[in-house]
């Protein structure tokens, strides 16, 4: 089951000396629902994802996932939280080209295991099959862009995350791939009841989310649960 999100009085800045770039007074996302964050380039979409996922620590405010405020955790604990509770999907896929699709999906298992567990390997094969990758041993560098993003989705889903962060997941894809990947993302979050936090500037994708938040210059322009 996905985690709920409650954000309050959030302020984040690029460094300790500069003015807060991102200001968000209140935000709530229900477990298993989806939130699309949109806005022009430089509006703070990706920065908000970094803060919500615990990669960046805010200057002030709380980010509570299922009641746990991740801003109070140390860096190692936030890394562990992300490893165990979150999946990440990036605009540029961020696959390791010399590794196969399967090895890319299993990459997170190497963070705390010498060899992946057999259930992880089975899950990886199953996910690759589910996202339509028929040659799991093909080098990631030789996959099409659509296949790369589908492999990245399989990787994000490996540990059955309760939250999926997707930063412009279809922005680098052609129209056909965009639609296929979007379908797979929404199928996955519905199938596994994952809470989805997604940035996008594509209206088709944004409109499929349960809630929308529009940012401009780090401030909320409009948004709320639909």
């Amino acid at each position: 089951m996905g985690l709920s999100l409650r954000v309050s009085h959030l302020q984040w800045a690029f460094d300790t000396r500069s003015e807060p770039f991102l200001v968000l007074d209140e935000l709530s996302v229900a477990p298993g629902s989806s939130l699309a964050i949109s806005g022009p380039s430089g509006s703070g979409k990706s920065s908000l994802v970094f803060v919500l996922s615990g990669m960046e620590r805010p200057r002030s405010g709380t980010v509570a996932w299922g009641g746990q405020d991740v801003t109070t955790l140390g860096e190692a604990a936030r890394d562990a939280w992300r490893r165990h509770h979150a999946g990440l999907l990036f605009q540029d896929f961020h696959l390791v080209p010399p590794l196969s699709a399967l090895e890319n999906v299993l990459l997170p298992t190497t963070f705390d295991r010498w060899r992946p567990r057999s259930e992880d390997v089975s899950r990886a094969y199953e996910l690759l099959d589910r996202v339509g990758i028929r040659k799991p041993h093909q080098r990631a560098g030789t996959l099409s862009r659509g296949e790369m993003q589908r492999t990245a989705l399989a990787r994000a889903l490996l540990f059955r995350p309760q939250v999926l962060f997707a930063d412009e997941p279809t922005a680098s894809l052609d129209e056909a791939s965009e639609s296929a990947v979007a379908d797979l993302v929404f199928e996955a979050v519905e199938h596994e009841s994952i809470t989805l936090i997604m940035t996008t500037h594509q209206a088709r994708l944004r409109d499929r989310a349960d809630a929308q938040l529009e940012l401009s210059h780090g401030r909320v322009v409009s948004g709320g649960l639909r």
Partner: protein
Amino acid sequence: MMNPFPLLMADLRRSFFGSLGILVLLAFAFSATIAVSLFERGFRNAGAEVAQDTDLVVGAPGNGTSLVLNSVFLLGTEVLPLMPMSVFDKLQGDPRVAAASPLVFSDHYQDAPIVGVGPAFPRLKPSLHLAAGRWPQAPFEVTVGSGVGLVLGQRIVGAHGVTARRGVPEELHEAHPYVVVGVLARSDTPWDRSLVTPYQSLWLLHGIAAAPAPGSPQIDADETDLRAQVSAVLVKPANFAAAYALKADYAKNGTQSAFPGEVLAQLFGVLADVRTALTILSTIFQALVFAAVLITLIASLPQRTRWLGLLRGLGASRGYVFLALWLQSALIFVVAGLAGLGLGWLGAQALGTWLGGRLAMTIPITWEPGDLAVVAVFWLLGLLGALVPAALGFRVSARKALLRSD
């Protein structure tokens, strides 16, 4: 337990030629130190092995080093000045002398010197053993070293001159061929590529003594005339004190004397200085290569920054990132150390084979525990150096890395 190997191997595959270039550069830089060390030790051991049989050499006044190099190493670098046979007679009759043999160098067969010796020669060279036949007893009998390539009963013709001279026609002694009566076992000394004959053979060939009557088994030294001369005399003193007394006595009055070991020690001293100089040079070279490699590894960090961001984004700890980066550089240093050992050994072997061939002796290239200490220091420095790119990558911000546009 974390396992960054799949990732670092993937990165090495991605940058295969760059990593290989770094590895080869490091390996060659390191191999120079190893090669110099192995070769110098091998050469020293080989020299000591060759000289161990010879306690004292007496010759005509001149260059002591040349006397030893020509009479012990049979280098034939120059014609030794001759001294009267009476010096040998006097030594032979000296109660302080256990054994003595004249050495006469004047002829050669192909690339091998024909060395005229006395009957006591086998006692003076206990490390030389017969593989077949016997030692020569009569003029124009010859016992050959294992590397000469002759067999018992074969007849050969010597040529004039201590060594063959390129471009100069050979002056053959065709009237007086030699017959092979013995073959020496391999000794890994210059004697492997020499022919040993009674010194009278060479005297007869050069008109110093009358030719023996047909059927005469042996020529007595008394039959020689006053012009009889020898190149050097090998001496086995009766005891330690006698050795020094003889050395002092024969260092004057128209002779010079030398302990081969002492001369070799001086030569090895020079060789050690050369080794030190080469080691310093190769160490400087290594340091420069080391610095260049570290700079390259640091400069290549931006290419890996996106991966580092990905790892951090997926929840990898900073420790994992640090370990992955450190292991990647460390692996290059470890493999380069091993490759350097191999290349150094090959280099020393090649040098040993080349110089050993020229000196007609075997230069053994062997490992000693100290060599492992050298590679251990190289590895230690490499592993420490690898901390630098790892520490820099460790500090990379996930947000900045993931937002990179390249």
